[in-house]
């Protein structure tokens, strides 16, 4: 495959970036998108040029490290996958592919396609955990009866890998799908109920402090989420916050 790549290049967080065009040839349709970028980087290194920086780690859709806004869509033109799971067979020979970093005020660009997603970490630190004392007489989790639907919903919410595609694709750069999933995964289970009120108040407060936008229920996040996290998690978060605010 022969392709034209238009890639966002930015020296550092302070500098002004721009799209740079690269022609690339001999790309196998069976390569992953990140492998294609590896090939381009190998060439750039040989040419004594600065290789393109991009995030990646597990390369099997688990870690949530890879990002990239490809041809106007978070994680590219496929559903329920991360960029590392995207293959070049999704494109045609001669295509022009736009590759940009995830954009949001709360996700500043560090270099090229690498962004700072530590805002998500700070939201998690503010309440995305349970404080169960696990030493001593801890009850076996399997002996606690949990409604099947609640368990399924909690597990579905827990599949969120925190990649940030929801923020990147949202026209308002809202992080409510991420925060809604993190709140839901605990609030639905008895272990997470103890500090449910404090959790939702703190996490929503931190989300607002980070400068994410407001959700307007376009549903784009749900469509682009590689794990199919549902908008119902946002509705649950809204209910939890209202309940917690009244209880406080």
């Amino acid at each position, binding site marked *: 495959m022969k392709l034209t790549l238009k890639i966002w290049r930015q020296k550092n967080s302070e500098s002004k970036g721009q799209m740079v065009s690269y022609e690339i040839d001999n790309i196998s349709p069976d390569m992953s998108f990140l492998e294609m970028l590896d090939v381009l980087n190998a060439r750039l290194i040989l040419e004594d040029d600065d290789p393109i920086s991009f995030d990646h780690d597990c390369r099997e859709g688990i870690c949530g490290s890879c990002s990239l806004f490809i*041809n*106007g869509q978070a994680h590219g033109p496929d559903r329920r996958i991360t960029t590392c799971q995207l293959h070049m067979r999704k494109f045609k020979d001669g295509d022009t592919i736009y590759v940009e970093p995830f954009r949001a005020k709360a996700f500043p660009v560090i270099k090229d396609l690498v962004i700072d997603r530590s805002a998500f970490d700070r939201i998690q630190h503010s309440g995305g955990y349970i404080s169960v004392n696990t030493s001593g007489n801890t009850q076996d989790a399997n002996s606690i009866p949990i409604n099947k639907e609640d368990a399924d919903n909690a597990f579905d919410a827990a599949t969120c890998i925190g990649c940030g595609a929801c923020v990147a694709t949202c026209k*308002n750069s809202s992080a409510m799908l991420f925060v809604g999933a993190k709140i839901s995964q605990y609030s639905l289970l008895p272990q997470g109920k103890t500090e449910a009120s404090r959790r939702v108040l703190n996490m929503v407060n931190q989300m607002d402090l980070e400068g*994410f936008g407001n959700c307007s229920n*376009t549903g784009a996040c749900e469509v*682009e989420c590689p794990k199919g996290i549902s908008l119902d998690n946002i509705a649950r978060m*809204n209910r939890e916050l209202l309940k917690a605010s009244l209880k406080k």
Partner: protein
Amino acid sequence: MSNNVLVLIFVLQLNIMKNFLLSSIGKKVAMALSAIFLMIFLLQHFLINITSVFSEDIFNMLSHFMGTNFLVQFILQPILIAGVIFHFVMGFVLEIQNRRATKYEYQKTRGGANSTWMSRNMIWSGLVILSFLILHFIDFWIPEMEYKYIDFMPDDPNRYHHELVEKFQDPLKVFFYCFSFILLSLHLLHGFSSSLKSMGTNKAYTSSVKTLGYIYSIGLPAGFCFIAIFHYLTH
């Protein structure tokens, strides 16, 4: 003593609700509440207006009641105006905040791949509705206020139907009226279900909300357009 405790609890509760309403979700909920209030108003407005098509007397009777009832005129009407202003001001405030949060534009976007045109353009359909409302106020509300509270004209319970029909004799006005209602329909097609989602509607009701939303969002504006076209063509 007990009164002081009650006042203290009330002030604390107000403070807590203030924190809630200032949060991003609180603003969403407030926006949704004002939207639901306006949708209920729109429904009652339609139910009164549709009577003009089949009975001049019923329409006159209902309009006279609404135009002279103390509760409607001096309690509900100011609440309605406040609700309209709040909905528009909040819409602009949220739009500005959201634009600040996005900050950078993508070189290439494909919004249509994951969301509807209506959901992405609420501010634009809202602006058309706002311009329509200004015209509607100039056309109906201000003359009505002048008639009753400035000129102190004599009470005439049979004037309403005639006045309504007269307003719909200008084809340009009928066209703009219908155009605005098409935009209102697009606004509601997203706004109806969005407002209920913002209120935290349980997913068990998602499909019912969607169906009800389609019926309301298409049926109601179509009904308003029908009333305007009917009076234009039959008088």
